């Protein structure tokens, strides 16, 4: 009983008029908030199925219903290429971050070597510094090395982040040492212990890292603008979408369809693996 009284805004089946009023107020507020959060997306989906003349009408049901905006965006405005580019970059960068993050994270969690603490401080400092302030030196370096004009520069600067290394280290610290000791008794070397024993045990952390890094790379706008702007065959989905909106700001159905394409993979992953997002955000943040 006490708990129900205590939980701040718990809507208990109404007893007195004031309680009913409060409950109504609470649900009214929730409804308004829900509208603010859901209406833009629902409306955008509806617009993407409209014709251009119909798109200026403030109606929720397209009339007539058409998928022409989708096919225009996908075929004529090259979203198929951008989508492929984004997927390719995500696959490469996520794989590298898993492997290198785990490798470094394991070294810092388990192996003792001189200077470890100092190096770890450098990792933490790297997390604190804003990534975007690397802009000028990174751009000049990549120009000097002739790595502008293809994907390799973008991949190189994203091979492994300090955040991912830190995240893997924190997870390795929670694994009991018994597993490694057993492996060593069986005569496994350091790399084999890491590869065959520790990495499989770290699968939950790898799952979270995969999702968060995929999201980060898929949504990245800053570095694609800096490195790929003007080279259309290299556009990622986000850069392609931003440029579509600059070029054709009144093609609302096409803009709506393009936006949904840019969001869709993240939405699918989010719905399927929600708890990773939440736990990842909390561990990455709070443990820091």
């Amino acid at each position: 009983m006490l708990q129900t009284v205590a939980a701040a805004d718990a809507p208990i089946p109404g007893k007195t008029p004031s309680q009913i009023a409060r409950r109504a107020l609470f649900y009214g507020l929730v409804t308004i908030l829900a509208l603010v959060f859901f209406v833009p997306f629902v409306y955008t989906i509806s617009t993407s199925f409209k014709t251009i003349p119909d798109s200026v009408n403030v109606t929720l049901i397209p009339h007539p219903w058409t998928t022409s905006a989708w096919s225009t965006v996908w075929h004529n405005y090259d979203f198929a290429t951008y989508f492929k580019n984004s997927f390719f970059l995500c696959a490469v960068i996520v794989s590298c971050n898993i492997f290198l993050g785990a490798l470094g994270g394991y070294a810092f969690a388990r192996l003792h070597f001189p200077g470890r603490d100092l190096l770890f401080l450098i990792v933490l400092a790297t997390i604190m510094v804003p990534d975007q302030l690397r802009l000028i030196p990174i751009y000049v370096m990549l120009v000097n090395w002739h790595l502008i004009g293809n994907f390799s520069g973008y991949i190189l600067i994203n091979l492994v982040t300090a955040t991912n290394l830190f995240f893997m280290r924190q997870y390795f610290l929670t694994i009991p040492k018994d597993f490694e000791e057993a492996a060593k008794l069986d005569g496994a070397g350091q790399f084999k212990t890491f590869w065959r024993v520790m990495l499989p045990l770290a699968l939950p952390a790898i799952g979270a890292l995969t999702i968060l890094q995929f999201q980060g790379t898929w949504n990245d706008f800053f570095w694609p603008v800096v490195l790929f702007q003007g080279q259309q065959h290299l556009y990622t989905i986000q850069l392609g979408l931003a440029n579509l909106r600059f070029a054709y700001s009144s093609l609302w159905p096409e803009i709506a369809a393009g936006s949904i394409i840019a969001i869709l993979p993240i939405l699918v992953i989010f719905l399927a693996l929600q708890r990773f997002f939440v736990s990842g955000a909390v561990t990455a943040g709070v443990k820091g």
Partner: protein
Amino acid sequence: MRGARLSEAVWGYGFAFVPFAVFGLFFIYPFIYAVYISFFHWGILGKQPGASGTYNYSKVLHDPVFHIALKNIAEYALAVVPLEMALGLSLALIINGKIRGRNFFRSGFYFPSIASSVAITVIILYLFAPHGPFNTFFGFSTDWFGSASTVGWSIVGLNAWTTSGTVMIFYLAALQSIPEDVYEASALDGAGSWRTFWKITFPLLRPAHFFCLVVFGIGALKLFDQSYIVSNGTGGPNYATTTPILYIYRQAFANYDFGVAAAAGVVFLGIILVLTVAQWFTIGRQEAG
């Protein structure tokens, strides 16, 4: 045993080598290189002969546009951080209460935070276009993202909305770590829910308040995506969307002055570091007191 320890150290260096080569080359060296570039005339063709000394720095520090960029970002951070924290805490309280369809609402509130900022900005730009659905429906004719007087607040509103979901997640974790018996004691004392919130819950959330202040405060200073998309990369109208990062970007890719851009980056990094250290000290003191 000494051999085993030596071999462990060798393996340790071996494992850490590649990640550290990446950090060294692409995270640490660039900051040293940026300082170097900032002391030269550096154009589209690279370094020009002759050192410029502190010329780039004096140019940045006397540039009215850089001042506007700093003023813009200060105003933006002061407006958006309290707003997203208030909104995020409200969402967390709603989710933490016994509401039907809890998971549904939690996902819905969180989703704008993880969806691409480009797509969200593009969607909002079209919904709030001068003749867009919002204005048509509510009978406005304001150019929310196009006029210098409203665009700042419009970006504040947009980002408070998208970021509040992440703030909510942090507050939810904090709320769930408050032991139930604290509330029971308060209920025994006959405190109503409004009073319980202000006297018990809000003060107990202090670590979360400070955490959010630091994380989202520093995060706000890096505003770029929304300003770029709203202004097509120009920082206009009338510099209203020029942020420090966008200023650096434009010095490099519109004015082709990499020396000035690098100097601006060094200055802005200095500002961020001072603010970070100041925040840590304040928080350290607050947590202790």
